[in-house]
């Protein structure tokens, strides 16, 4: 876990365990509370919301429904924002959604080279690697090499389509449904779908 500061072996009382940046954030919070700008209870709710309520399980349900309901898949292709909203996933960083369907001919992969734009309502907050310089710098120039970092090797004849999220349009990759899942329930299918598969740095496969 990079950039978390370091632990001290010695103890100078409360606060000595906090890294310089943790102390800065703590100081800023106390100032903003003192000035009446933020309610600490609202901060707790914001954190809980993105730790426990809004995360990649939402996106997995979208994918599973797309796999089992052709009318929904068609709606996703035409108007992903509305189709996803019909499942209750709306809001910040998901205002304008586009669904990208992987096929045997094409593989889609999403990045934000300029910051770390990410579809929060369906995937939650992005993982560190998505926000890191290695991913942001390399995804557009050598996507196949980046995929290898994730253990994914694509056939040469499969086109890789990279999507750089430079505006407020947010992308959700709909991975290919694995063979051998005929008749599975949406719930069982959703459990197979990983966050990385919905970014395009993973594929969905059956458990070994």
């Amino acid at each position, binding site marked *: 876990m990079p950039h978390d500061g370091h632990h001290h072996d010695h103890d100078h009382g409360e606060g000595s365990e906090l890294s310089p940046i943790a102390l800065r954030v703590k100081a800023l919070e106390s100032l903003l509370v003192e000035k009446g700008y933020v309610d600490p209870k609202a901060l707790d709710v914001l954190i809980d919301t993105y730790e426990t309520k809004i995360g990649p399980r939402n996106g997995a349900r979208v994918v599973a429904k797309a796999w089992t309901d052709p009318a929904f898949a068609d709606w996703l292709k035409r108007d992903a924002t509305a189709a996803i909203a019909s499942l209750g996933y709306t809001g*910040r960083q998901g205002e304008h959604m586009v669904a990208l369907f992987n096929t045997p001919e094409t593989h889609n992969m999403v990045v934000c080279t300029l910051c770390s734009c990410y579809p929060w309502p369906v995937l939650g907050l992005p993982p560190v690697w998505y926000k890191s310089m290695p991913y942001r710098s390399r995804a557009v120039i050598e996507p196949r090499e980046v995929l290898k970092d994730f253990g994914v090797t694509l056939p040469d004849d499969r086109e890789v389509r990279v999507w750089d999220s430079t505006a407020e349009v947010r992308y959700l990759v709909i991975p290919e449904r694995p063979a051998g899942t005929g008749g599975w329930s949406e719930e069982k299918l959703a459990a197979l779908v990983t966050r990385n598969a919905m970014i395009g740095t993973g594929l969905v496969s059956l458990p070994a």
Partner: protein
Amino acid sequence: MNGAHDCGGMMGFGPVRAEVNEPVFHAPWEARMFALMSAMGDVGGWTLDEDRAACETMEPGHYITSSYYEHWLNGLELLLQKHGLATAEEIVSARASVPARAVTPTVAEAIWPAVTAPGSYERPIDAAPMFKAGDRVRTRQMNPVHHTRLPRYLRGQVGEIVACHGAHVLPDSNSRGLGEDPRFLYTVRFKASDVWGHAARDVIHADLWEPYLEAC
């Protein structure tokens, strides 16, 4: 602004290292920082574009070697001062010494409705799009000193319009407090071989506003 944030195509950062079973936040301060930025965004009077611009003003060496939420911390400290919500001295001392601006903080009960409210960056304008799907366009060669969303690696490149998303708030204007100035937004497809000069048949898409594009 040609800052360190605009890193598409840079080399030398090494492999992508994904963490197994990664937590949403790696330390309590990251969670607090996330929440502070979100909560202040509701009341501070700045836009998301201004927020991004503030995070991009970090000195390049510092930007590259610091974590995502440290970018946010630097951005928030800057925005608070710019919008008259806190002084540099207050931020250093962590003590209020000048009167607060009157704002109504978001209460806990209002968080869920706020974060899930369907929003839109599309604005109706009295104009027709210059381009349609299938048109060939060239991105402008430009190096503005202010915030922009045309990455360096896609400047002066020929691509094809894939879709028009209607007119969206223009970050170049909105980030500077100059108004939303909505312009047509397009998804543009580029051949990776054109952009990088290699042989891969892959393609790259970006969402680009009309002022970034010219007919070709």
